[in-house]
C-alpha cells in the first residue's frame, strides 16, 4: 500500500506541483498562503488516495481538491468571500461583441511587444470566477469538461464564463496596448 502511494505521488502527483502552486498563488495573491494551500492539497490527496483511480487524470483531481480547500478553508479564514458581480457581468455581456471586434482590429505587433508582467497583471485584475476559468483553460490547458468537474459547475456556465473572461481580458490588453501606442 505504501509503495503504491509513493508510486502515485512520485509519478503522477508531484509532477503537478508547479501548476498547483501557480493556481494557488493566483487565487490567494500570497506565496505563503499558496504554499499552505498546496501542502493541504497534497495531504488531502494522501488521506483520500483510495478515491483516486491510478493512471487517470491526476491533474484535474488535484486541482479540484485545491479549489475546494481554497473555498472551504482559505476563504473562511480570510473572511473575504468573492463572487461574480451580476450587474457587472451583465454589463460585460453587452460589451462582449465590441471587445471581440476591438481585439481583431489590433495590429499583430502588439503581441510581440507586450511583456509577461502585463499579461499576468491583466489576468490578476479579473474577478475570481473569470480569472479561474482563464487560468484553468488558457494557462493550464484543461478542457471545458475538466473545468466543469473541477469547479463543479455546468459546462454551459464554463463556456459563458470563459467567453466573458476572454473578452474582458482582450479589452484590458487592448487598452494597455493603446496606452503604449500600438
Amino acid at each position: 500500500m505504501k509503495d503504491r502511494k509513493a508510486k502515485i505521488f512520485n509519478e503522477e502527483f508531484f509532477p503537478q506541483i508547479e501548476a498547483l502552486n501557480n493556481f494557488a498563488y493566483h487565487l490567494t495573491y500570497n506565496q505563503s498562503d499558496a504554499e499552505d494551500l498546496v501542502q493541504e492539497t497534497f495531504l488531502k490527496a494522501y488521506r483520500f488516495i483510495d478515491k483516486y483511480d491510478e493512471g487517470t487524470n491526476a491533474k484535474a483531481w488535484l486541482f479540484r481538491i485545491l479549489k475546494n480547500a481554497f473555498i472551504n478553508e482559505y476563504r473562511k479564514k480570510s473572511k473575504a468571500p468573492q463572487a461574480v458581480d451580476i450587474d457587472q457581468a451583465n454589463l460585460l455581456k453587452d460589451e462582449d461583441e465590441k471587445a471581440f471586434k476591438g481585439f481583431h482590429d489590433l495590429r499583430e505587433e502588439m503581441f510581440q511587444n507586450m511583456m509577461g508582467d502585463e499579461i499576468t497583471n491583466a489576468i490578476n485584475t479579473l474577478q475570481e470566477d473569470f480569472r479561474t476559468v482563464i487560468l484553468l483553460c488558457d494557462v493550464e490547458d484543461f478542457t471545458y469538461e475538466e473545468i466543469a468537474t473541477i469547479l463543479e459547475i455546468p459546462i454551459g456556465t464554463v463556456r459563458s464564463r470563459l467567453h466573458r473572461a476572454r473578452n474582458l481580458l482582450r479589452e484590458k490588453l487592448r487598452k494597455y496596448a493603446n496606452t503604449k501606442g500600438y
Partner: protein
Amino acid sequence: MSNLKESGSEFSKDFVSPSLEKRLSIEAKQELASELKSNPEYFQTLEKDEDFQMFIRTHFKRKEVSPALVDSIRAKMGM
C-alpha cells in the same frame, strides 16, 4: 453553413472557440476545413484566436516552487 458566411462573429461562436477547446466533432472538423478552404478570412480569424490563447499561455508568468515546499510535503507524508 450558409449563415456562417454572413457573419464572422457567427463563425467565431460556432467554430473558433470549440476548436480551441479541442471538442469539435468529426463532422464539424470536416465542415471547418471546408469553410476555411473557401473563406481565407475565416482562417485568419481562427489563427488570431489561437494566437491569443497561445500568447496568454506563453507569456503568463508562472511561480516557481521552492524545494523547501516539496521537502515539507514529503516529510509530512513520511515519504
